[in-house]
């Protein structure tokens, strides 16, 4: 329930292009454990939405079940939210966007919700290239049921109880690239700057944007032997590139050294600016993206950044060729064919 009323901001107050303050993007207080990676991601979501100037009423927050799926209550109080069924957020999100194509769908899921119970719906969401920002808050364990391994736990990683994971991890980014997502990134909750840039890029994208964010569980998976802990992440994170974002309403005023950056224009006219680090990587090449992921898996590297981007592919709503207005609120005269149509149909059946 929206309790924040829109008082005209005081002149000194910092506001975005919609004249909204960052506080207008806040949610309820979190009930997650202190220090949870997910709370950090919620904060970056608030920041990204605020800085981008997304109208809160246009956002639909969708989630499944689990710690991660609770978080939509902790940002954007002025947006509708739907905490749905375990692993089935993709279908609810699909329905919502079909009903109202003007919605900015933000799905928040976890590794259990996406990689296990929900993997069926996840892969079909990817295949449809539904316009959605799909965030996986990935900590390798089930938190709400107290610390069992999830399907993204790395081979050989250790539970607090000493149990060793003897099955290979499902790489959600590989799945996403392979099955049709058009914006695929990996990040780390301990790297807020990158998270914000990748989120903004996803907001400007017009298809399925999957961001797999390693988000440590401070209670069940933050110990030595875990490959999803803060310290492991901080020690091992390797940036694919430096991600910067320039929204459509700002001029590109930085001069980059020739060949040092890659600048990709997004659907809404915004740009992701990818600054080269050690490797020369082109995220618009699908084959390269899959190679990169396979390679990093073999070398047990923790690569973060923008892995794949395709700005050309049609999304589900375009493919369905639906009218420009939201279907949900079309007036009856546009959804009830005339009497003559029924007469014609009846005559053919006589």
């Amino acid at each position, binding site marked *: *329930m929206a309790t924040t009323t829109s008082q005209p901001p005081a002149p000194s107050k910092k506001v975005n292009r919609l004249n909204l303050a960052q506080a207008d993007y806040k949610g309820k207080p979190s009930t997650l454990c202190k220090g949870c990676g997910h709370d950090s991601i919620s904060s970056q979501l608030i920041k990204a939405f605020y800085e981008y100037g997304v109208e809160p009423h246009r956002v*639909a927050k969708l989630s499944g079940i689990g710690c991660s799926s609770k978080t939509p209550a902790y940002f954007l109080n002025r947006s509708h939210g739907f905490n749905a069924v375990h692993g089935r957020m993709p279908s609810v999100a699909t*329905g919502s966007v079909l009903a109202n194509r003007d919605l900015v769908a933000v799905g928040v899921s976890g590794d259990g919700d996406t990689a296990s119970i929900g993997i069926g719906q996840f892969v079909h969401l990817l295949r449809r290239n539904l316009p959605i920002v799909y965030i996986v808050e990935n900590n390798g364990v089930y938190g709400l049921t107290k610390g069992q391994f999830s399907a993204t736990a790395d081979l050989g990683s250790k539970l607090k109880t000493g149990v060793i994971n003897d099955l290979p991890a499902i790489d959600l980014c590989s799945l996403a690239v392979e099955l049709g997502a058009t914006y695929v990134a990996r990040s780390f909750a301990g790297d807020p700057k990158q998270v914000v840039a990748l989120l903004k890029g996803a907001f400007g994208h017009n298809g399925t944007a999957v961001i797999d964010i390693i988000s440590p569980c401070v209670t069940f998976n933050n110990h030595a032997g875990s490959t999803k802990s803060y310290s492991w992440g901080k020690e091992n994170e390797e940036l694919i590139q430096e991600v910067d974002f320039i929204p459509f309403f700002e001029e590109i005023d930085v001069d980059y050294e020739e060949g040092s950056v890659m600048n990709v224009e997004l659907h809404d006219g915004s740009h992701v600016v990818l600054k080269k680090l050690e490797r020369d990587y082109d995220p618009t090449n699908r084959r390269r993206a899959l190679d990169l992921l396979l390679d990093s898996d073999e070398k047990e590297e923790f690569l973060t950044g923008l892995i794949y981007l395709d700005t050309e592919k049609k999304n589900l709503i375009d493919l369905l060729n*639906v009218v420009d207005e939201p279907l949900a609120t079309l007036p009856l005269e546009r*959804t*009830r064919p005339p009497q003559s149509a029924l007469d014609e149909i009846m005559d053919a059946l*006589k």
Partner: protein
Amino acid sequence: MSTQALAGEKERDEKKAVVNDFSIQVATVNGSGSQSSNNVLMRAIFQMGVPVSGKNLFPSNIQGLPTWFTIRASKHSYIARKREIDLLVAMNAQTAREDVQALTPGSAVVYEESLGLDELRDDLVFYPVPFGALAREVIDETRLRKLLANMIYVGVVGSLLSIDKNEIRLAIEKQFKKKAKAVELNLKAIKIGFEYAETHLTKSDPLKIERMDQTANKILIDGNAAGALGSMFNGVTVVTWYPITPSSSLVESLIDYMKVHRLDEETGKATFAVVQAEDELAAVGMVLGAAWAGARSLTSTSGPGISLMSEFVGLGYFAEIPAVIWDIQRVGPSTGLPTRTAQGDVLSTYLLSHGDTKHLLLFPASVSECFDFGGVSFDLAERFQTPVFVMSDLDLGMNIWMSDPFSYPEQPIDRGKVLDAEALEKVGDWGRYRDVDGDGIPYRTLPGTNHDNAAYFTRGSGHNDQAEYTERPEDYSKTMARLARKFETARQHVPQPVVHEEDGAEIGIVAYGTTHWAIVESRDQLRAESDIKTSYFRLRALPLTPDLESFIEKHDRVYVTEQNRDAQMLQIMRMELAHRPDLIAKLRSILHFDGHPIDARSVTEQLLDQEGDR
């Protein structure tokens, strides 16, 4: 009164013609194209003004297994399945002998000559026809020859029953529409059939079709197409589905109709979206997501799909989200009799999901009710913000039924209690789950509503009036009590029963859905043959409406008739009438569960049997 249909036992009198009151069964091999032939035969009789009904009894198979099609002509307009077969067309070597053995004495058999069926019995009328050899006269190609052999029997039967050749020609043109080559070939096959019968067969059975005027202005349609039309004319915008027999044709018809009638005039773009989901869980998830965002959305499925939807439907109940779910019921699990009909999902669907859930169920009995409920289901779902199930079945959904043309829905649709930005501005303070009007139904807002107070957070049962998270016992109890109150309000608004009370009748009959047609005929049988008067209460929805109690009160014995083994509706009545043990004591059960549509004779026999024991 014609004794043929009513006496139960056939007293054949060759001199006395049996006109427009018999059933034809065509036994063929699945995938042999017999469906077109059967449709042509049925339509030709229909065009002669004679009431008809067709029942396709088909296997779960693409090609090769036996299949039967029954056409009933009834001058009394009885359109339930008739148990006894009067004319068998035996085209399938696999089942021919068994089919012939099952016939009652005096029946007629048209059969492929090489099967030598006439040796089996001497109390039937046999018409051998060399279908294979005749088809070769029309065409050489083996596959087409099989199709044409099926059309030849239409000619043979047409000749034997005196069906107007011209009506058959018109039916063929309708069936094959603009495919000139197909029309020509099939007409040739018909001609060969007629000529063979005229020159080689001597009519020695009493069956005959004569022109009537009972089908003028009627339509022929299946229930799934009717439901699709009802949905299209009542503003459906989002459709999701996972293919499952016998429900697939509902969405397929809807797609076909909407592609023509639901494109925006100016832009040519669709005023609808259809998604074939990855499974039924996703299908219903999409429906809930779309309805949450304000669209009229539906999915269509059958029993196994309903099971998969269970979890989501529970969430829909507690989070109070509209959904329309068509259940085209069939027999049990997927590896069973998935292409046979039943009313077997009633009890489980009524209570589908976990944690005190119950739902609104509609029971269409006819294709026109399928059309009407296409709109009623949405009005109820949006008014009550809850999943609504339309409980059709394979018999209604996939078979072709005669009907008056559907009436154009003139009334506006009911979109329920939705607050838009303007309304929010007026009301000021609101709460998603507050019972403002005392009817248990709260107000909702749609995502995308441009108002600072519009948003709320949707989750299961753990919410208070303001949709805030809570696990407080009093909040939960309050929510549950309000949901129960909402259900009581719905009781007054679901389609009311259709009741026929006979003066002085001791016996009442309760039925629903397709069982209706057997009841109509059985009541006539009971009156004519046994001088038994019955009253009839046709249920059209759950929850039960209060007038059921008064109906039971007025009768000594009430037979609840349904197509399942466990008397599911009777169980629901016992549950809901727990406060009236005197009424429960009057309830009896008539059941039919062999996978075939229920027939009047079976009802009459069971009722008389139980009356004898009383």
